[in-house]
């Protein structure tokens, strides 16, 4: 694992002798401690799913949403510090609205990602700001088709077929790589993501979790929406069944 910074990790404006900025790496650790977030690009759209860890039995189901709509055609799933995530989402919404009022068309997803990533990066440049402690998976459907991007606390953003962040990201990435995404529709993708999240959830360490999913695809008329209730219920049931089958082996 990473060595202790010994003095080079006190400020985000300090480089270590081997060229690392420790504060940013520590921010990434905050993301790794949160529940898993997955996004995949299917042939007709994007599906995103979040393993929302429930900290108290008294929490109302459906509260503390981790997936937010940024614009009609795009949404963000957040992993890491939830309050930081709210800031990023608010900024993304503002950027999207501003773009549309200037250029008269919905913001292209690539442009939105670049603006949000610049904003995240901005907060790693000054000593009086701290980096965002959250990573974001941004999925959207514009005139160039469905696109999936991931933005890390360092401000780096890449375009992906499938992305995962959070606790179970390694296991999730292995599972996603097994899928044939270019032939999959979003309906099938919803089932697959539910299965993956149930599989990477660690029963021993964390107790309860709630599955939150959203999609933006041809079936949702290219609008970013929560996955319809019956589909979600069906996906959860299928995931539980698949898990039991695996345990039985």
């Amino acid at each position: 694992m990473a060595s202790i910074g010994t003095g080079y990790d006190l400020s985000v404006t300090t480089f270590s002798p081997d060229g690392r900025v420790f504060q940013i790496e520590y921010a990434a650790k905050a993301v790794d401690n949160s529940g898993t977030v997955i996004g995949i690009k299917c042939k007709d759209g994007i599906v995103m799913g979040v393993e929302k860890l429930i900290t108290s039995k008294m929490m109302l189901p459906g509260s503390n949403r981790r997936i937010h709509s940024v614009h009609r055609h795009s949404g963000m799933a957040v992993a890491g510090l939830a309050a930081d995530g709210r800031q990023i989402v608010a900024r993304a919404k503002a950027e999207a609205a501003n773009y549309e009022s200037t250029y008269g068309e919905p913001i292209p997803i690539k442009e939105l990602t670049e603006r949000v990533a610049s904003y995240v990066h901005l907060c790693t440049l000054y000593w009086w700001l701290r980096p965002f402690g959250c990573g974001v998976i941004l999925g959207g459907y514009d005139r160039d088709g469905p696109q999936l991007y991931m933005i890390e606390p360092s401000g780096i953003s890449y375009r992906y077929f499938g992305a995962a962040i959070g606790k179970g990201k390694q296991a999730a990435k292995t599972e996603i790589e097994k899928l044939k995404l270019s032939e999959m529709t979003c309906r099938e993708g919803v089932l697959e993501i539910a299965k993956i999240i149930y599989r990477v959830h660690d029963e021993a360490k964390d107790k309860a979790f709630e599955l939150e999913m959203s999609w933006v695809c041809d079936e949702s008329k290219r609008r970013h929406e929560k996955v319809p209730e019956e589909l979600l219920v069906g996906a959860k049931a299928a995931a539980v069944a698949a898990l039991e089958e695996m345990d039985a082996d």
Partner: protein
Amino acid sequence: MDPSVGDLNSPHSMGTTIIGVTYNGGVVLGADSRTSTGVYVANRASDKITQLTDNVYVLQIRKLSLIMCATFSINTRPRIQLGQPATVKVAANLVRLLSYNNKSMLQTGLIIGGWDKYEGGKIYGVPLGGTILEQPFAIGGSGSTYLYGFFDQEWKEGMTKDEAEKLVVKAVSLAIARDGASGGVVRTVIINSDGVTRNFYPGDSLLLWHEELEPQNSLLDILSSSSSEPMVS
């Protein structure tokens, strides 16, 4: 200054005819070429069709001498940010922002037309106040008042390129026949997936309409052709 002569110090204004029509696969933009200051024709072969980007052109009617130099900002902004040429909608919106935000200083009506790979051929009208309106065809300028009925009858959806260009040339020449502030030559620009084509139709190649005289080299030719009485044919 004798008012009957006309005010040669009047603002360099453009009574004009400008037209943009969409067809099946692109757009055709057309305009006359007369710039008049009062009754004096300052430029009889001006080019009212300005390039905004590779695939978007704009027609302007200018009533004040402040000219919208929008080309530079419109070309660079989307291209640098998005890494691809602007779509017609984006270019039109940037133009209308300039028109809307500076409406106290500018008086200009514009027609923006172009072709992009997402939406095909599109025409956007940006009249005086700076609103933006997408239209299948648009006409503007002092000469356009004579063309509303003509377009009501002649406009069709899904014309071919040649039909559209013939329509534009016919319309501009009709306007030139009736509007004193329009005249000269007819310039057209055709924008489609293959690129941009500029065409030029000199005034004497246009059809003559009702009661129009044949073009003459000199009025003396008419006078001397028949009786020795002047002004009697």
